[in-house]
């Protein structure tokens, strides 16, 4: 059985993502997740397989470039990606994923999300219902591009050990 990867982030970072979603409501927000892949937890799971762990240590909020349909679409340009990568390098981190909001929709990836997704990145989605941030989930595209796999989110006061 596949083991769901775990994405770790601090309560502060989780709150910033939720707040960004609330600030841009009813439009979608977006931004880069800066962090690194870390060694799995020492604790062994019941299956004996330790899930991969990804730490989100900083955010790089971006402007949604989809001016024609910002309520249900977001876009990050190649130039934005390069800026995010530069910001990550300055912090000795990597761009390990992207976050965006789903205003008045569940925090689940759409078919449009899947069609436009890259592998390896974590895609964090926060649902914003009537302006208030709600459920937050994380997803990663399968290698064959057929679907997203759900990632567990661990929110703690200190994501880094």
């Amino acid at each position, binding site marked *: 059985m*596949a*083991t*769901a990867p775990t994405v770790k982030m601090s309560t502060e970072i989780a709150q910033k993502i939720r707040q960004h979603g609330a600030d841009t409501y009813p439009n*979608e927000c*977006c931004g880069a997740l800066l962090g690194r892949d870390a060694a799995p937890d020492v604790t062994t799971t019941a299956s004996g397989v330790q899930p991969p762990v990804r730490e989100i240590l900083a955010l790089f909020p971006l402007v949604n470039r*989809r001016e024609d*349909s910002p309520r*249900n*679409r*977001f*876009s*990050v*340009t*190649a130039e*934005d*990606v*390069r800026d995010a*990568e530069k910001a990550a390098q300055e912090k000795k981190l*990597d*761009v390990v994923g*992207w976050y*965006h909001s*789903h*205003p*008045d*929709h*569940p*925090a*689940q*990836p*759409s*078919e*449009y*999300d*899947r069609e*436009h*997704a*890259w*592998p*390896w*990145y974590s*895609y964090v989605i926060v649902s914003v219902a009537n302006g208030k941030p709600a*459920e937050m*989930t994380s*997803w990663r595209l*399968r*290698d*064959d*591009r057929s*679907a*997203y*796999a*759900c990632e*567990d989110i661990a929110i703690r006061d200190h994501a880094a050990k």
Partner: protein
Amino acid sequence: MSVRVIIPTPLRAYAGKRDSTEVKAGTVGEALGRLTTEFGDLRKHLFTEEGKLRSFVNVYVNDEDIRYLAKENTPTKDGDTISIVPSIAGGSFFFQDCFPRPYDCLHRNCCRHSSNLSFRG
């Protein structure tokens, strides 16, 4: 003519964990073709099933976007650097997205998600 192709982080797992590779090519199209011949798993992430470069895959030759040059026919010369740079897009549900769902349940929370669906009319 040898050109260097910079592989973006999310695709390195499909290219032997390399961040770049050298290929012999006279155009961008030839370079990408040689790249995906050497690393076959890259192909589905760079090209559609029809063989077209995916819309969110951006290709630069020495920092010049090939969309403003001759696209995949853009000529390359010895020592050029080709960069593959992602752009990111997504968005929320449309009704036609409901089935089949574009995600897998890998842990218990997903089952909770699936019972929580609601859609704006």
